[in-house]
């Protein structure tokens, strides 16, 4: 089956320099936040991205939307490489790709009323003559968006501090929808919210996807949230994708040792399940991402490490239909022999 690929990253890298010196800065190293990520976003799907803090999931989203200029690699949206576009060209393309951020307290300007917050993207495009809309239409658009995400339009002259966390996240979602984008990159949109509110927002995401035919990249550290919203799931560790598969087969049969540990560590709200299941408890912490690695990135903590893992970085290989994993445990003999 051929899928329509809407957005694709090829060997995307995002390194942040570590600098030293007071006046004359010199580069002494780099934080390898994203270190070679290949992802595809298919039309109409939700790609979930999970991983622990510092694994580069947020940085990946920001590098895709060009909020960060990637160190190397390509971001291809419908055939055009976003990293090579001029500013103006980028602006034109980027209206199709919008972001929803994690912290609804920090991502809304506290000095703007809701109406202005949601209208701002429209204004930006209108001022550059990329959008043909008059004032009345814009006003109607803002009101429609507010009602659609579950906010009364009578709130449009209020400031963000007058809203609760869940409502603020709704404002952020309305803003991201203002330009009728096709892709939404949602960066931990529910992790700052309480469980009862979290369920409301997750349901809203799913409704909107159906209604506006959206494609999501949904980032979260909570595995159960990811499982609920995603069609396919990518697991990241230290700036690399270690496993990617459709959500059902990944949850039924995780392959990579890290994915297995991650799943078994996630608590399940059911005392019967919780008391009988066996946990894989990993040793140690995630290493710092400031060194170049020559072996498998998970080597230090892996319960199944082998000699081959120490000196080679496993590539992401398809082991089953729609199931890719980067681990030497699943390499065939022939693939292994090619290494040496």
């Amino acid at each position, binding site marked *: 089956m051929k899928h329509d690929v809407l957005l694709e990253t090829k060997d995307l890298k995002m390194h942040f320099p570590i600098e030293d010196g007071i006046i004359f800065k010199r580069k002494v190293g780099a934080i390898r936040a994203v270190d070679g990520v290949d992802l595809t976003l298919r039309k109409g799907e939700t790609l979930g991205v999970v991983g*622990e*803090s510092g694994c580069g999931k947020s940085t990946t989203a920001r590098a895709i939307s060009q909020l960060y200029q990637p160190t190397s690699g390509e971001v291809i949206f419908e055939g055009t490489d976003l990293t090579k576009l001029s500013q103006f060209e980028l602006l034109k393309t980027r209206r199709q790709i919008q972001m929803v951020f994690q912290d609804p307290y920090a991502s809304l300007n506290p000095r703007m009323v809701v109406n202005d917050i949601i209208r701002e993207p429209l204004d930006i495009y209108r001022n550059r003559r990329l959008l043909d809309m008059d004032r009345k239409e814009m006003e109607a658009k803002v009101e429609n968006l507010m009602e659609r995400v579950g906010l009364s339009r009578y709130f449009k002259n209020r400031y963000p501090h007058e809203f*609760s966390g*869940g*409502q603020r996240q709704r404002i952020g979602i309305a803003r991201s929808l203002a330009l009728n984008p096709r892709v939404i990159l949602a960066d931990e949109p529910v992790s700052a919210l*309480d*469980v*009862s*509110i*979290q*369920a*409301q927002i*997750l*349901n809203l995401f*799913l409704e909107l996807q159906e209604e506006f035919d959206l494609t999501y990249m949904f980032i979260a*550290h909570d*595995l*159960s*949230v990811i*499982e*609920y919203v995603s069609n396919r799931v990518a697991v990241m560790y230290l700036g690399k994708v270690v496993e990617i598969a459709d959500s*059902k087969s990944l*949850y039924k049969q995780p392959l990579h040792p890290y994915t297995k*540990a*991650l*799943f*078994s*560590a*996630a*608590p*399940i*709200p*059911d*005392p*019967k*399940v*919780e*008391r009988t299941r066996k*946990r894989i*408890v*990993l040793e140690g*912490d*995630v290493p710092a991402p400031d060194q170049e690695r020559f072996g498998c990135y998970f080597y230090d903590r892996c319960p199944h490490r082998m000699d081959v893992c120490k000196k080679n970085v496993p590539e992401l290989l398809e082991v089953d239909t729609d199931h890719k994993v980067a681990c030497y445990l699943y390499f065939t003999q022939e693939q292994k022999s090619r290494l040496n």
Partner: protein
Amino acid sequence: MSEEKILQVEDLKTYFRTDEGTVKAVDGVSFSLGRKESLGIVGESGSGKSVTNQSLLRLIPSPPGKIVGGSVKLEGVDILKLPKSKLRNIRGNKISMIFQDPMTSLNPFLKISTQMIETIMLHQHEDKKTAREHSIEMLRMVGLPKPERRIDNYPHQFSGGMRQRVMIAMALSCKPQVLIADEPTTALDVTIQAQILEIMQDLSDRLGTALIMITHDLGVVAGLCDRIAVMYAGRIVEEADTEVLFEEPQHPYTQGLISSVPRLDKKTGKKLSSIPGQPPNLIDLPDCCPFYPRCPHVMDICKNKYPNEVKTEVGSSTRRVSCWLYS
């Protein structure tokens, strides 16, 4: 049953005075804790779970906060009536606490050794040398690698998970009767969370410490606690044995809470049920059920009066719920 209770909290009330009015953060909370028992207190932000437990050790900043009523009895002695000098003997010795953020609860200017030895010398009356050995032993128990050397490090030299281990070692160093853990794993990643929960369970079993676990994550308490109390708007709305609570939650809020968490092990494919609306403002709450605007079973009486507590016996233990559906 009652002779085995080590901690008894009765009708605890903690209010905060603000310019807008009085915030009844904790408004009549009662619970008890048996020896070696572990109790989970679950609720959303603002439900009063942290304030309840800070009140137990009188850690509420006053003003604006004030414990206005109730009693907290540790082995029969009311902590709320003790003079400040006696209180010291309880804090960190008989009841100790672990906080959410291990970076802000350790002093960044002092070595781990200084902070640990100080506590042990004060409460256990050991000399400096034995206190140091004792500290190293505790750090080894929580799984800190090379504790003899690491003890002389500063807090910033540890990762989040390691800092939380140090906190646990410190909290358990005086063999307290009660350990209060306030969202101890919320700031940590899942794989680290699994490590920390395992250590906490193992150590409190070995040292015979009773545990109060405050969290918003139902998954964390499901595996760890014997009993669970659910808080909403400053009160405990339901309390039961863990199995009973998850099997048949009675209060509509508990039911909503359990069904609004997506389950990793069961793919239903259905829409997640959510609780509509949002938690109430705690300023000048009227004497009604605070959950009624969000409740699917709301009746007229709910809007006028707070429901009485209904106790029922399930097996060997009691469960209680505050809802008009059961009165």
